[in-house]
């Protein structure tokens, strides 16, 4: 029960990583800030180009497809689709480089 040879999960099974299955509220706060920062960059580009009467294919596509932070559901801000996960959702922090990539929409039908 006690002592150096007790049967805890890391000792009996070897490597045990404890990654929480959901984000903490502080992680969620920072995630919202990052989403808003990207929204700001896109809005700045859009305004600056609109003044000159120019536009950009990538910009138009982003505006047509991607919701802004305010339009997104909490579900889409903090989780993403995964076909192998239970109920098809997993935490967005499982996505590699999740703080530096844009992941906002779901596959069609989900």
């Amino acid at each position, binding site marked *: 029960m006690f002592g150096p040879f007790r049967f805890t999960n890391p000792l009996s099974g070897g490597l045990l990583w404890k990654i929480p299955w959901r984000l903490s509220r502080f992680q969620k706060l920072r995630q919202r800030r*990052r989403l808003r*920062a*990207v929204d*700001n*960059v*896109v809005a*700045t*580009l859009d*305004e*600056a*180009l609109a*003044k*000159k009467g*120019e*536009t*950009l294919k*990538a*910009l138009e596509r*982003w505006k047509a497809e991607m919701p802004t932070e305010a339009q997104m559901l909490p579900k889409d801000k903090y989780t993403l689709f995964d076909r192998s996960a239970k109920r098809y959702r997993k935490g967005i922090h499982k996505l590699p*480089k999740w*703080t*530096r*990539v*844009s992941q906002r929409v779901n596959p069609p039908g989900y």
Partner: protein
Amino acid sequence: MPGWFRITLYRSAIGLPERTHGVLKALGLRRRMQTVFHPVEPQFAGMIMKVKELVLVEEVDRPKTNWEVKQERTPEPGFYVEKPAPRDGGRVLQQLRQLGNVKAGEVDEEVRL
């Protein structure tokens, strides 16, 4: 008057695809918090769009030199001495003033509690 993009690298591209590194190099961004200026043109907007998660962008009237950018975040030289504030936030002093014991001019060390 052409506008300019003021672009600051806020997040590093370490571990991101080689293309992302290339875009940052093309923009002239080498280290975090470095600021560069580029004219408002679709080609530069497209490059910013590629790295929009990593940069902070503003539209400005004219580009600043590196020296001017550095001056923005350099504090004033020298120092100034702050006067100590009364410990109770000045409440007793106010009451004394209301009672007429202390005139506005003679607030000094004697009254500090």
